[in-house]
């Protein structure tokens, strides 16, 4: 190994400053390191519910549950797209394909989408949720945390996104599989909550749209 000469040491010195600063900047920019935000207002919208008799065969449902929230400074459309119920798959058993689409924007040029949080809960244990990661489409968003939890948890999965570049527009599309490991007599109820935090130019605000999906067991 050759000895470090003066030029190398100079470069190392510069690097020792640039690297930590760069990493700090990138962590801040990507939202991994965040300053605590004070939410000045929280709006929780009325739950949108959907009910479905659990069939004994494959059923293409293709049903969209959509909600729009608009005020003078912010607009969000949230859509739960219920795709198809598939029965008795040898690999993943009974399952439902779901899509989640969120489009949001602020009207104030100084406003931006701070972050988006989607959480899926079900108390019944014999079910799991899988994110279909290759079907994610994000615009001005970055994934901060994406998790699927074991079946014994009531929170089955969640995803946390952070807005990029203080953009006043952020959109996401996500797909999930809701896997039902139960007999067709068993009912399931999934609560999906879409929460958005935005900055309107002067304060951070939060809105939440709950969805409730009920699959009724067949006696």
């Amino acid at each position: 190994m050759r000895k470090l000469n003066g030029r190398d040491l100079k470069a190392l010195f510069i690097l020792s400053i640039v690297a930590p600063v760069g990493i700090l900047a990138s962590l801040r920019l990507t939202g991994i390191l965040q300053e605590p935000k004070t939410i000045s207002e929280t709006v929780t919208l009325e739950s949108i519910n959907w009910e479905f008799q659990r069939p004994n065969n494959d059923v293409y449902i293709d049903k969209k549950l959509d909600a729009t929230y608009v005020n003078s400074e912010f607009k969000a459309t949230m859509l739960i797209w219920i795709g198809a119920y598939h029965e008795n798959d040898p690999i993943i058993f009974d399952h439902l394909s779901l899509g989640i689409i969120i489009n949001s924007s602020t009207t104030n040029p100084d406003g931006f989408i701070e972050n988006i949080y989607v959480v899926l809960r079900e108390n019944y244990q014999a079910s799991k949720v899988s994110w279909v990661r290759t079907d994610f489409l994000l615009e001005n968003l970055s994934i901060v945390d994406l998790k699927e939890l074991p079946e014994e948890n009531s929170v089955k999965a969640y995803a946390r996104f952070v807005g990029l570049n203080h953009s006043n527009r952020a959109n996401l599309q996500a797909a999930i599989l809701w896997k039902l490991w139960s007999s067709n007599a068993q009912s399931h109820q999934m609560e999906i909550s879409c929460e958005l935090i935005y900055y309107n130019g002067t304060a951070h605000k939060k809105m939440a749209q709950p969805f409730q999906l009920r699959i009724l067991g067949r006696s």
Partner: protein
Amino acid sequence: MGKVRIYGKKVRASILIPILLLSVWIVFPVSASSSWSKPRPSSPTPYDEVIGNAYTDGIASIGVGVHIGTYYENDPILGDFLTVKVSASANSRKGIQYSCQWPSTYNWYDVSDPTGITEDNSGVNLTLPFPVLLYGVEYFRVWVCDNGFLSFDSQFTNSTPANIPNTDPPNSLVAPFWRDLNPAAGGSITCGYINQHPYSFVISWNNVPNKGNGALQTFQVVIRERPGGSEFHNTIFFQYKSITKDYPTTVGVEDQVGDKGTSFDYNNLYNESCLECYVGGQGCRLEQLQIRLVKIDTDAKIEILENDVGGYNVVLKSSTNPHGSTYAAAIKFAAGQLISKVFGGCAGIMFGILLIVGDYSGILSANLSEPDLTPEDADEWEILAYVTGIARDELYSQPPFDSTLAANVLWKFLDPNDEDHFVIIYADAWYRNLDTGIPYAISTSVTLNMYINQPPAIPSAPSGPTSGYVSTTYTYSTSTTDPEGDSIQYRFDWGDGTDTTTGSYPSDSTATASHSWISAGTYYIKARAKDDYGAWSDWSPSLAIIIRCSLTVETHTISGYQIRDVKVWVDGGLYYSPIAVAVDGGTHTVEAESDFVRGAFWYTFDHWENGSTSNPRSVNALTDMTVTAYYNKEMCPTLFVWNGTEYIYETLLNIHAESDVTVQHQIQQPLALDGLFYKLQLRELDNYTSHIDQVKLYAVDNGGEWHLCPLTSAKLEDAYVTRKLLFDDNKRVDLTPSETINLKFLPSIPYNQTAYFIFEINGYNKKDL
């Protein structure tokens, strides 16, 4: 072929694939890939099929199992996708080899706990006081057989010793002295734990007699507790206190499947000796297991369902910070660049120090810790998806002898069912010889292929008869090939609105089908082919067949009796009834003879079977049909002439009418003079009566002039009725059945000048048949 994104740059997949595949071959000894190949369906299709492959390098073995679930079409959210479960299973047991040290130190243990074995050919299941590692498998119980052996997987009581190794049971075998012994005849089988160093478990056969000659055998097996934890196999001692060499005996150890074992010749044993069986060193252990899915097309994705990953003896710890691995990779990459390109190795260390002393060193160090489970999906521009698990013994958290990793996968297709897709699924195992430190890797693979099914080629034009008859069955053949070699079903269109679908035929073989047509006409037969997956070919060229029908013409009397040999004409062709003529489908002209004499009867056409009286008639023949002409059978006076020797039949005189009619008849028979007269007779043969008003005979000369021959006498039975027959008046002779009128005429011109004669009758007969 699309492009693949590597380090942010797009590279043509066609360039990368050979490199990638080559790298696989270079890094891993691999087996030939097994394959599963199906056409891509156009609707949801459950498969529920399993395919696998395995490879061994003689030390370790790797297996891949793929369970193909269901193909879904047009899911509103996920589109087209196939569910697949992939498992990789590896073990390093093949490299385990027991050695024998002979002689070893003899140190007999007296153990007294009864095993409970007292019967011949019997055994018991004992709980081991400590786990026993035999050929890489850890056991907690053992079956003891009275015939001098232990089996670890299940109970056996074989009395005939078999050679080692031997795949026949018993396997997982430890045999200190396997021969036919009989504890029922004496002795005891005892066991005990030696609770002092060296800690051991002992099973002892004490004075157990041979079943054959009763000679007593005393020996024991001593299983030594492992001193160094799980990574070493237990050493096994066979001790012989008093044995005889009078029967074949097996001595040794054998693995779980009976393909490996170590045996010792029992003839070399002697009393108060010890044989030591041991595995030298720690051997080879698994370090890492990986499932790797390689796709080459850009219109597909591979999604590993992260919470559907599991395994045995594999550490499945999700990263607590999912993007940490991204940072870890980026920082490692940067560090690698620095180390290799800028400053050399020393700079890498410096860089690490810089990171650690920073405010965020805690976060970064957490992120730098590679998760033990590393799933990675393959998006459309990526070629590789994988999940990796660190192999760890679940009991001892050390590199194990065997390990399994499984994951559920969605194989997604982005094209509109017009592209072939395939993915190679590898199971990779890394293992290391713990004694030498040398690492190894092995791999095996399965290829899944979903191709766009091509329909069979257009079948050949059907081959078979080109003409035939209705209601007759004919057989036709055709053949074609399927591009994928699938079986083929054929559909024959018979041209009459019906079709026939055959059973399945191998590609490029001849299929046949039979049909009969119910109507005459020209039909065009064609065929098309369908493969196993429902893809139809286009229609073949057609073959024309002309189907004719049979037109039967019969002649009957009105009362229903058939008359044969009556002239009938079908489309102008002369036939004699009854006749069946093959005709094309369509309109035909049928004519029956209008009248004819048969014997003493006169037949006249009356009507057809359909009531029509039109003769000739038109017949529309599409299928076999019969037309019948009905005739009146009429009985009128019959004329006989004297030929010089006798009266012979001349003709029947048709005066069938309601009132008088005149009928002239040219005499055909030779009419001879009998003296001065021409003699003729009128006879009535039927049951009705002819009312005869007048009869005349003309002699026609050679110039065609008629000359009336005077009637000189007419005698009915005994009465003369001449005057009644001379004139056309109201006086008639009633000629009743069986009566005869004898007529005599004088010649009007010389006989030799007479060309022929005309007989004329006037009267009527109202008989109606």
